[in-house]
């Protein structure tokens, strides 16, 4: 982990999301896809947001930048604070100033995330020039500098190349260069390594680590892959069906999960030592926002479910309440006190 | 010519095993369900049915003979006697419009029929025969498509002499590539599919494969094209008749009526306005119907049209 004089995350958080609620219009009315999500990230800290597709993790990250398409989406409550600035309710103009400058984002699909019609360097320079209002040549120099920083050889020449002339890994490096060119305080990374193969994936993670340490950036790392989270994150937030089900520092989460869903995700990871062991999968499918089970939303798929999970005694409006077990660990499991869950080995 | 975006490339239609049983039937049911939601297309279809009925029943609906001249009542305004006024020879515009509908519709039908004959068979051939046949057919198609339609029609009519039949034959030739490309594209994409391979491997004759699998699949996009081509043919006929190169007097199509009215724009605007309105509405109906039909097609089929 990062060894520094000031431990990451102990100062005031750079980005703080509190009780965020997002709804989508469906044929049968409004469906809540992000239901009271809270988390924060500090300077030079990396927080993982983990969950299956449909858990609301991508919607959460898009909401931070105000990029949710509206219609059909609407943010109905909560707060998103960047330092002292409340992002929810900002006008479009004000948000545009912040996007790409103080909060940047990289996406899953490096093949389609860069504009095919413009040279890669021009796309980076355009963003830098838009926020820094500098000369063209200064912006171009910055683009080349950033491409060099993300490890693209012969950056001055490659800056003039088009995205289709780059490999997938190179494009994701270029995306990182584009995102980091204005030295943002927060980087939102939505499955940035999912589309890449193993070796490239490790290289991109290394690159993100070194960029974080160089620029002191707070990173929100959205992924379905707990293995990647363990590799790069300091803390993690596990999401299921629009809710946070567990929050913990990465070592706690990994070795002592406090929610059966986290345990199940860990069980689904490929084991490094046991080559013969069959890969465990989580039975069933995630519920759709329109048809959530009563009580604990995970209980129909949970290996430890008891009848009381469907009718929790301490009933909250959103099923089961998230309960803090220590100052850094929280779980939404009804049986959290009686269960001894299995961590990764 | 412009190959990137014009050709209907063989789509990657999902060839599932379920399609062996009957690709046409289930598709057709889905098609009609979607079409029922396309109310503008249904209105258009209703309008077209009425127009055809009017053309067929023209003698019953007409209040005068379309050819009866009345030199005492030329260029009369619309009135109770002459609902849409009279023309420069005192003929009843309303009655002439009814009869002209026959000529306008038949002309469009003729052009589309020619296109179908010249498009569907060579299209099947281009899709099914070898690469060389395909290349030759496609080069000819490119050549035909390099002619500005109306100019070629004008030229041919100029050589053969003014006649609506000649003109619409040429228009039919010029529109044939649309059908040809459509059919060829469907054949090429179907050829790659498993159920065709299966049929062929058990020795089903080629014409039987075409009849059983290709034609049902290409039928719906073909209907879409027929509707859209009818609109274009109608406009082409109107233009040629307006130039005096289509139907010859005393017969008249809507376009020919406008040509006549054009000489009296100021004195008798009704001679121009009403036939033009009918052309525009009918062409609009064909276009709206075609668009509605296309939107009712499945995604895979839509790609080919």
């Amino acid at each position, binding site marked *: 982990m990062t060894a520094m004089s000031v431990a990451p995350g102990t100062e005031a958080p750079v980005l703080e999301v509190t009780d965020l609620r997002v709804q989508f219009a469906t044929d049968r009315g409004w469906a809540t896809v992000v239901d009271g999500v809270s988390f924060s990230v500090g300077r030079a800290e990396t927080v993982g947001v983990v969950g299956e597709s449909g858990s609301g993790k991508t919607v959460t990250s898009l909401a931070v930048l105000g*990029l949710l398409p509206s219609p059909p989406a609407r943010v109905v409550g909560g707060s998103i604070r960047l330092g002292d600035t409340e992002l929810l309710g900002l006008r479009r103009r004000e948000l545009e100033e912040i996007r790409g400058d103080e909060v940047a984002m990289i996406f899953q699909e490096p093949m389609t995330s860069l*504009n095919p019609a413009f040279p890669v360097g021009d796309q980076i320079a355009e963003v830098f020039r838009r926020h820094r209002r500098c000369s063209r040549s200064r912006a171009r120099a910055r683009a080349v500098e950033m491409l060099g920083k993300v490890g693209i050889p012969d950056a001055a020449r490659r800056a003039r190349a088009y995205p289709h002339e780059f490999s997938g890994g190179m494009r994701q490096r270029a995306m990182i260069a584009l995102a980091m060119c204005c030295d943002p305080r927060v980087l939102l990374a939505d499955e940035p390594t999912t589309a890449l193969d193993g070796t490239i994936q490790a290289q991109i993670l290394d690159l993100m680590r070194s960029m974080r340490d160089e620029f002191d950036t707070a990173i929100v790392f959205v992924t379905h892959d707990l293995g990647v989270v363990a590799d790069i994150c300091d803390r993690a937030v596990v999401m299921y069906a629009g809710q946070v089900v567990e929050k913990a520092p990465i070592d706690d989460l990994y070795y002592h999960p406090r929610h059966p869903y986290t345990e199940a995700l860990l069980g689904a990871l490929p084991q490094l030592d046991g080559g013969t062991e069959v890969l465990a999968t989580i039975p069933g499918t995630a519920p759709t926002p329109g048809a959530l089970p009563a009580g604990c939303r995970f209980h129909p798929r949970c290996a430890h479910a008891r009848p009381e999970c469907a009718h929790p005694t301490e009933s909250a409006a959103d099923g089961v309440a998230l309960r803090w077990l220590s100052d850094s660990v929280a779980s939404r499991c009804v049986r959290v006190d009686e269960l001894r869950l299995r961590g990764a080995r | 010519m412009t190959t990137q975006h014009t050709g209907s490339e063989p789509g990657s239609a999902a060839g599932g095993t379920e399609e062996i049983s009957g690709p046409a039937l289930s598709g057709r049911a889905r098609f009609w369900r979607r079409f029922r939601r396309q109310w503008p297309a249904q209105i258009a279809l209703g309008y077209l049915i009425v127009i055809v009925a009017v053309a067929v029943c023209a003698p019953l609906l007409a209040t005068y003979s379309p050819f009866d001249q009345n030199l005492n009542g030329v260029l009369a305004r619309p009135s109770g006697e002459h609902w849409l006024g009279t023309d420069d020879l005192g003929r009843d515009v309303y009655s002439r419009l009814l009869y002209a509908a026959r000529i306008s519709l038949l002309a469009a039908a003729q052009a589309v029929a020619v296109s179908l004959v010249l498009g569907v068979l060579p299209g099947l051939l281009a899709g099914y025969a070898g690469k060389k046949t395909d290349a030759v057919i496609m080069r000819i198609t490119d050549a035909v498509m390099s002619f500005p339609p109306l100019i070629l029609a004008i030229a041919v009519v100029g050589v053969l002499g003014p006649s609506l039949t000649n003109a619409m034959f040429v228009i039919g030739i010029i529109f044939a590539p649309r059908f040809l490309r459509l059919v060829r594209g469907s054949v090429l994409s179907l050829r790659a599919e498993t159920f065709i391979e299966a049929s062929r491997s058990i020795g089903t004759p080629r014409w039987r494969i075409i009849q059983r699998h290709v034609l049902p699949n290409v039928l719906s996009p073909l209907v879409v094209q027929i509707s859209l081509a009818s609109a274009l043919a109608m406009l082409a006929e109107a233009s040629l008749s307006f130039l005096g190169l289509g139907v010859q007097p005393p017969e008249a199509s809507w376009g020919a009526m406008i040509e006549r009215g054009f000489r009296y724009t100021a004195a008798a605007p009704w001679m121009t306005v009403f036939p033009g309105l009918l052309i525009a509405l009918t062409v609009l109906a064909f*276009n709206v119907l075609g668009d509605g039909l296309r939107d009712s097609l499945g995604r895979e089929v839509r790609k080919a049209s």
Partner: protein
Amino acid sequence: MITYALRRIAMIIPLIIMVSFGVYALVLMIPGDPAITIAGENATEEQIQATRERLGLTDSFFVQYWNWISGAVRGDLGQSLFSSQTVTGAILDRFPVTLALTAAAVTVALLIAVPAGIIAALHRGRWPDRAVTLLTSIGISMPSFWLGILLVMVLALATPIFPAVGYTPLSESVLGWAHNLVLPAFTLGLAVCAEITRQLRGSLSDVLHQDYIRTARAAGLRGRIVVVKHGMKNAAVPVVTVLGFQVGFLLGGSVVVERVFGIPGLGDLAIRAVLERDIPMIQGIVVVSAAIVMLVNLVVDLSYGYLNPKVRQS
């Protein structure tokens, strides 16, 4: 890029040969003996023979074609049967007028279609989109000559804002030229405008859902720049293709529009040639207009290289 251009040009040559052959073969379609048809039914045997020789009909068809095409390559399309003009000369006389008309029509079309298409794409499914869609459907369905006559009725006869007919050469008066061209350009441009609007609406709203548009927004680029710069350059390829397709339509449409507004362009020349059965003139006009269509499509294909960098390599 250069090899792409050269290959693309090479592809055109067999096409030109086929097209010119087709045009020349028009002579074969003349019913009966062309010489008799052209010289007139009451012509004497000598007159018919003279016509036959003037048309070069005494040679075999292929020799005739060879003579014609080798002349055409040098810019000599033959002699008009009814005037002292050469075909090339007559076409060159009229071409600038038609060029001005079509260029003005395309300008009008783009001036309307680009904003309309963008508005429709940005509001897909909502009322501005529905309004644009309805208007384009109507625009495509109106016969252009009818629209022209209606415009003349309203804007030239009822309220004399624009001249109903006539053409002023640009060299004579720039204002008069523009004044005369407004109604014809609008008439000719409307259907093209509708086609382009439809295409732009479709391709732009597809492009606006692409990941790189989300990237541009996430990087804080202003909404207008995202749409106009990042969206339009990618949406332009199908639009330019459609524009290229419209050239054939424009050339045909200009015949009709020139007739409505009394403009002495190529279309007027074509009608006159057809009425007089001036075969060399008809052939010349058809082959020139086909060549224009092919040339424009060549330019369209080459423009893909600019709009879509991937094409440049292949």
